């Protein structure tokens, strides 16, 4: 398969808006691996696979709860990646976790664990540009594309540096805050997309606070695509089954195709 960035660029060139749903690996216990193929079939262009961490400071109550439930059921990063390795998604997978999970395993070992699992990208939301060095070196060497977050609080010159160092895509944070559903799309989401599109031709994907098909379509007026997390995980928490979440991903796809 082509790399993450190459794949997303190709889809974009076909006139697609990019959809990257998020799942918390390990939840719902036993059933979660089915989400991987399910999301792909429902029209995802890639997906974020969250490896649960005990202290997720960028996450709101919904994703925290799924992480806690997964950890209470005994989830550990290596075992979760072993499960991921068994799935055939046919689209790029992006691991999302906090830096200590990677640091504890060791940069090289973590990068090669991702490669073994068939994962092509990685997001570490508490590892900003200034601390990126040792991980980025290991990731680059292993061919893992390190996606960087860009936040509305960054001045323009910082966005430029982030865009230059980002691999795979640039994850524009849609609002000043943590993950979680919002009733309306924040004005900052479109603004973030606009600022990033002005300075880069790498795929610009907006996440955090994108909660509905309408909001996804709205932000994709400017952005190349969206990450949707809490709205999916809430459906998993409410129903305890993967079906409602997969159906919802289909609705997101339809909304993006209509715009």
């Amino acid at each position: 398969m082509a790399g993450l960035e190459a794949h997303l660029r190709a889809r974009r060139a076909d006139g697609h808006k990019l959809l990257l749903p998020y799942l918390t690996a390990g939840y719902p216990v036993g059933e979660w691996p089915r989400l991987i193929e399910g999301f792909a079939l429902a029209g995802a262009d890639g997906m974020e696979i969250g490896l649960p961490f005990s202290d997720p400071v960028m996450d709101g109550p919904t994703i925290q709860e799924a992480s806690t439930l997964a950890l209470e059921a005994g989830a550990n990063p290596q075992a979760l990646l072993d499960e991921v390795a068994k799935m055939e998604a046919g689209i790029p997978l992006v691991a999302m976790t906090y830096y200590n999970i990677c640091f504890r395993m060791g940069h090289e070992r973590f990068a090669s664990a991702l490669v073994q699992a068939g994962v092509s990208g990685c997001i570490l939301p508490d590892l900003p540009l200034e601390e990126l060095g040792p991980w980025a070196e290991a990731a680059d060497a292993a061919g893992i594309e390190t996606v960087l977050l860009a936040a509305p609080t960054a001045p323009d010159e910082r966005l430029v540096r982030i865009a230059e160092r980002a691999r795979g895509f640039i994850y524009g944070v849609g609002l000043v805050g943590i993950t979680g559903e919002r009733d309306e799309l924040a004005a900052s989401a479109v603004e973030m997309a606009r600022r990033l599109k002005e300075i880069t031709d790498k795929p610009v994907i907006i996440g955090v606070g994108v909660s509905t098909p309408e909001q996804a379509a709205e932000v994709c007026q400017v952005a190349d695509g969206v990450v949707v997390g809490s709205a999916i995980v809430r459906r998993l928490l409410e129903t305890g089954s993967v079906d409602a979440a997969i159906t919802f991903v289909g609705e997101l796809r339809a909304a993006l195709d209509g715009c």
Partner: protein
Amino acid sequence: MAIAEARDPSGQPTRRVAVMGEPDATGRFGRFGGRFVPETLVPACAELEAAFRQAWSDDAFRSEYRELLTGYAGRPSALTECHNLSQQLGLRLLLKREDLNHTGSHKINNVLGQTLLARRMGKTRIVAETGAGQHGVASATAAAYFGLECVVYMGEVDVTRQALNVYRMRLLGAEVRPALSGSRTLKDAVNEAMRDWVATVANTHYCLGSVMGPHPYPWMVREFHRVIGDEARDQCRALLGGDPDVVVACVGGGSNAIGIFSGFADTSAELVGVEPAGGAAVGKGIPGVVHGSLSYLMQDEYGQVLEAQSVSAGLDYPGIGPEHAHLADIGRARYEAVTDREVLDAFELLARTEGIIPALEPAHGLAWIVRAREELAGRTVLLNLSGRGDKDVAQVQAIQDGDPEALKTVSF
């Protein structure tokens, strides 16, 4: 900055190193520290660093800060010689009385500095985490004084065991929000405060309560507590004609300890930090990253942070400030751990012998002194009495009465 003797694990001096200075440009003390925060907060940390650097070299800021410490917080705090207990233990015990500060602990030193800085940066709101409630009370106090809005996050377990402090914070006009995730103690309160700050960074300052977190906090908070060590050093020289042999402090994140250590790092005094056995980051920890910095951390083989377990809400923390990790690494300070049982005994001991009811946190320091009294025989030992015990009286009473809920917070 001070020059200290580094020592190998057998205690032999190896080389002289600069300590207690500024961390390097990445916020590191040796290999520890850094700034591991969500991208949203990077500009705020940089702004805070610049603002602190500028304020700390501004005489007007310094003198306003000093006036608050004397006129409002009641500094300098006394140095008390414990005649009764010294005789009983066979050593010479001195207490640096941070318990006598306004609000009852050392925490006010840091909070007054940070709120002055917050005002200077044009912030109208502060958020804080608290364990024992002492930092929360100090934050609520300073917010009332400066007319800032104040929200304090406190683990749900601690809301129960430190009920008196919860009421004090509310009385002072702060909003106390229980942290309901994870172990529902200090670690989770820090998570919630950081999440709040991620969302409110435009008008809010995060008033972090210890020498932990992302750069510049470990450095800035140490500078705001340096006054403890500076005073104690002068007071010891006046009383003893020299320095104490050993300086002891309890360590949660490590702010009261670094404050008193900073006055003695370049002397021959031994520096000893005392952690709870159930939260011994140096003893049981391995390097890891949580809450913005790289330091020793209690964690499992996969990097999940473990829950600390201690009778003292203020020390119930699985990490330790990065500068302490560095001082441990180079052998300039050593870190010991005591059990809850030893702490409760020390709590009573100080009350009975000296008429001073200590907070459970500094009772850890005394517990180690009691245990190590043979090693310490005949020596002069300075203990940082970081806070007073009023907040703990109800909890200790419930433990002594055998209340099952209270006993859950103790490991014997």
